[in-house]
């Protein structure tokens, strides 16, 4: 999967968790999930589960702690897919 596609897949996962007043266009590589996209921190575990399902990987608690921004998430996904391959 190319980087562009991964970003698109992640964006599709994340958009459902956005509050009503944050638009899908606001999701950028540098966006912080909680402080910028205003996603409820409780929903971060749901995003992790959706990412696991979409990319067929397993994200550990310590990975989740590192996952502050969209870019962080993409990096973790990259690493997991590399390790898998």
């Amino acid at each position: 999967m190319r980087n562009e596609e991964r970003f698109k897949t992640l964006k599709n996962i994340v958009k459902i968790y956005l509050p009503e007043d944050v638009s899908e266009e606001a999701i950028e590589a540098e966006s912080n999930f909680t402080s910028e996209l205003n996603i409820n921190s409780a929903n971060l575990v749901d995003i992790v589960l959706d990412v696991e399902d979409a990319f067929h990987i397993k994200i550990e608690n310590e990975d989740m702690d590192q996952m502050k921004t969209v870019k962080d998430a993409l990096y973790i996904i990259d690493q997991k897919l590399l390790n898998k391959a």
Partner: protein
Amino acid sequence: MKKRVVITGLGVCAPKGVGISNFLKTLQKGESGIAFHQELAALGFSCQIAGKPEVTPAILEAYFSPLQRKGLSASGIVYGVIAGMDAWADAGLQKAAKEEPDWDSGIVFGAGTLGVDTFREAIHLIDANNTRRLGSTTVIQTMASGISAYLGGILGCGNQVTTNSSACCTGTEGLIMGYERIRSGMASRMLVGSTSDSGPYVWGGFDAMRILPNQYNDNPTLASRPMSDSAAGFVPGSGAGALVLESLDSALKRGVTIYAEVLGGAVNSGGQRGNGSMTAPNSAAVQGCIKAALKNAEVHEKDIDVINGHLTATKKDVDEIRNWSEALQRKGIDFPYINSTKGIVGHCLAASGSIESVATVLQLKEGLVFGNQNCPDIHPEILACIDASKIPQQTIQYQPKIVAKASFGFGDVNACVIFKEYPK
């Protein structure tokens, strides 16, 4: 000074009665919300029929955002949110603005169980060593107060937001709790109601107790027979009812429609003493509760025009009629009209008190007494106590002034509330 309390909004999500106008039609015509459920038959239930509100995907989309719908399996939340949001809108109230809650509005929304199906999914995952896959909503979908938490967030209520639980008394008890809060000046508006989820894992325990009818699986609409000589047990139901209670001052200031006034009410327990037990009410307590409600409401026994009973369609219906008769000191032709909503929707358990209170208030508003279903053969011991004409078989035109609604629950707990017509 004590505040007068009125009802300014109604909402309901009942079997064959999702939304007030549908519910009213069903009650007026005496249609049945009871249906056969293959799911129950496949699991070998004795009683394979139940009352379940029909919530279509379009209705779900109208009340829940895509995020709220994700993994939503607690039917108690679905029913409660539909009824609660409807009642709020019916009262002409808005959701609170984004930055600040409405400090004068609160919620008492009761539940018995809320999301047994969600619990089941969680149990399967946990037993498979997969707890990490539960997601973030298992707790809010299974905690008893999930429904008041959900509604509190949607509406932005800043006063007391809580869930009560007292078995089949829950809805009527919650109404009285909200009434007391407004009466004492601690809130201006209280959304009161209750919800009960659906399905085999909710109803199985009752089937095991052999207190549900098993001979009507082919004729579900005939199964719920309150006050009938052939009553064979209660038909399990589910759903939610909701009412907006408001101080008269606040309602007049807002210039909204007033459905009825809540004159007062009472709750008590028989302590599982005398003829009371975990599952049967102590008659002295039932009568004491009715009398205390009258006293609290400052009305005389002879003032009651209509009773909406608990009347579940078991042999206990006879005891209930005797208790009303003795508490009110009225019998034969002097007894008030009496009906049971359960002949139509079944016994909606924790939701019964609120769904039936909505039905009771609709009678005051519409000038009707809804007909009793499936009791052409009134139990002879009931007929020995009250006149047959007081148990209307069809809906009749009659404008009651004062009506009483009671609910009794497992644990030997009772609640009785008195409503009065509010002159239009």
